[in-house]
């Protein structure tokens, strides 16, 4: 418990000093509902990256997303997802992600251990991601799956899958800005 609080404080301190940039491509997610894949996005999000491929121990990736902007194509469903039984945006206005450790998995491939906070639940997750370079930009692409029930997003359902797959792509980080 004490360790959690300490980590949270450290994170908050770091968070204060982070220089966030807007994510250009919406965060996408997919979830099965009655056998049908529902696609959704979180268009309003931002990130901060301290990246040096040669010094992964000094790298840091963080991001925060605004769950009030969730979009599944059905407005009333989005409103419900914003409510207290899902993201509870009034109380928890941001979803945050912070890296703790990043390791190389081969050329352009990495894996990061992150703290993902949704609502008031912080859980450690592993996100594999790739980095490609295009027009002087580094493009970070990551995909991971989480169990929504771990984060108190809704309840067990006969039709709605527990697992949600999330797709994130950062496209506006310039290589020239690398430390």
């Amino acid at each position, binding site marked *: 418990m004490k360790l959690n609080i300490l980590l949270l404080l450290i994170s908050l301190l770091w968070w204060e000093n982070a220089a966030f940039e807007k994510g250009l491509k919406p965060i996408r997610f997919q979830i099965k509902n009655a056998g049908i894949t529902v696609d959704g996005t979180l268009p309003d999000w931002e990130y901060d990256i301290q990246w040096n491929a040669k010094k992964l121990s000094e790298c840091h990736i963080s991001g925060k997303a605004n769950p009030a902007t969730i979009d599944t194509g059905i407005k009333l*469903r989005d409103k419900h997802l914003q409510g207290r*039984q899902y993201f509870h945006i009034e109380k928890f206005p941001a979803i945050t992600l912070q890296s703790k450790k990043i390791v190389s998995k081969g050329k352009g491939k990495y894996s990061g251990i992150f703290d993902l906070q949704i609502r008031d639940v912080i859980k450690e997750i592993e996100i594999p991601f790739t980095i490609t370079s295009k027009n002087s930009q580094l493009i970070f692409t990551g995909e991971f799956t989480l169990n929504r029930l771990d984060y108190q997003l809704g309840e067990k359902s006969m039709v709605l899958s527990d697992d949600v797959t999330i797709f994130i792509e950062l496209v506006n980080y310039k290589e020239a800005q690398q430390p």
Partner: protein
Amino acid sequence: METKPRLIVLLIFGVAVLCLSFIPIWQQYYPEIPRIWTNEALKDWELPNANPAYSVEPVTEEFYYALPERVIYKTYPVYHPDYEPEGYWEWLHKQDAQIVFDASQLKTEEDWIKAGELLFNYPIDTLGAVISTQHVRNKEFYAASGMPITPDGIMPFVQWVVAGKGKVYLGNLSCAMCHTRVMPDGSTITGAQGNWSGDKAFAYALESDGASERAVQGITSFLFSSPWVKGDPHGKLLASGKKEIIDAYKAVPEGAFGRQGTSILYPPQAPNLIGVKDRRYLDHGGLSQHRTIEDMMRYIAMNQALDFLNFYGDYNPIGLTKERLYNGQPIIFPGTYDRHSDAQLLAIAKYVYSLSPPENPNKTSALSEKGKVIFAQQGCVTCHTPPLFTNNKLTPADGFEIPEEHYNKYDIFDISVGTDPGYTMNTRRGTGYYKVPSLLGLWYRGPFMHDATLANLEDLFDPARLKDDYVPTGFKPHDVKTKAVPGHEFGLYLKKEDKEALIAYLLTL
């Protein structure tokens, strides 16, 4: 000498086996009959009113069990005058009363269910609570009220009760009155969303009996007044006078009914009881929790007019004070001076649980399979979750703030779908919520929406219904020409062929 002890042991063993083998049969013969109206059980059974200061305070356990138990007489069908067999009326008057319910004679589960069926059809009122003998024996009544009858000319919503030779009374207020549906082919479905045109029938009764304005206002107040509600819409209706009130009754379509505690301004769709065993809340506003068969028994007891004795804050619908209610003198008002025994309630509940739908004529097809996919794609499954086609949750109406403690007490789906909040915000039975309805049996039901405003499923998916110039195809209030039917804005903008597929699927459920 040596064989005697062996014989005794064998005899004892034999008797023991015999006794043991009887235990399950004995249990089946005499199911445990719960005492349902206890002060303890009543504490948290019903949800609070949308305005919690006016939540239901039912009669006490002591009062309830002091009421005499109902005697159940044999009943006889009521015919349209053109169909009544010759000499039937005279024959009825020659019949002796026959008491037809005796719990001690119920030997099997099937016996209980059969007895429940009899009680389901048994009218608890012979005082003319809705309509009387002179009405149903008059052809005009059927034409004026649009009352459905079977091909045999039977009006299955009321019964003749014979309480003795020459004592033939028209019986109202059976469960079957609101939960029997005469289909277009003349067949009847028991337990379905009923299509008795009760409010039109009541309007006919008031007019043909020459009820005074004061009488019309009085009975309408008993039925629907909720003076604490903002704007007091029922008070305004009463003040509008006899003609307006009668017009309001006439505006309620078949398939809806202004039962006591509800409204003819926001008339509830008559509920479909087929499948009710699996539903967690009863009433459109989810007023009563349904956790066990005891809850169902309580609901039956309460809703066959005992709720006229409820207090809502210091308000009682028939003008009682608590001193008068509890002074030991009987209250002669339909449904309030006697009660079903717990055994009778158990039998009815068992019967209601046993109801099953008739075979659905709409079979699965390529079109309906396409509709099934659309049903999932459109997110319908979230609320109308298979296999019950409801998630059994309560959704708040517009204008209702969910109290914090409700999240842990009830099954809440905390988003309003924007349907008309009138019923649940402005009536005695209103809780601020609507329960998510099951879609099972849509093929034999209608009109749709909680207030029966849409006659057909096609209307539900017609975006024109959101506009103020829309003419509702189901219930339309008596004092307007047009009215938007808001809310539940799903599937409105699907392509025509997708709507057809979705409806084809819905009709297979």
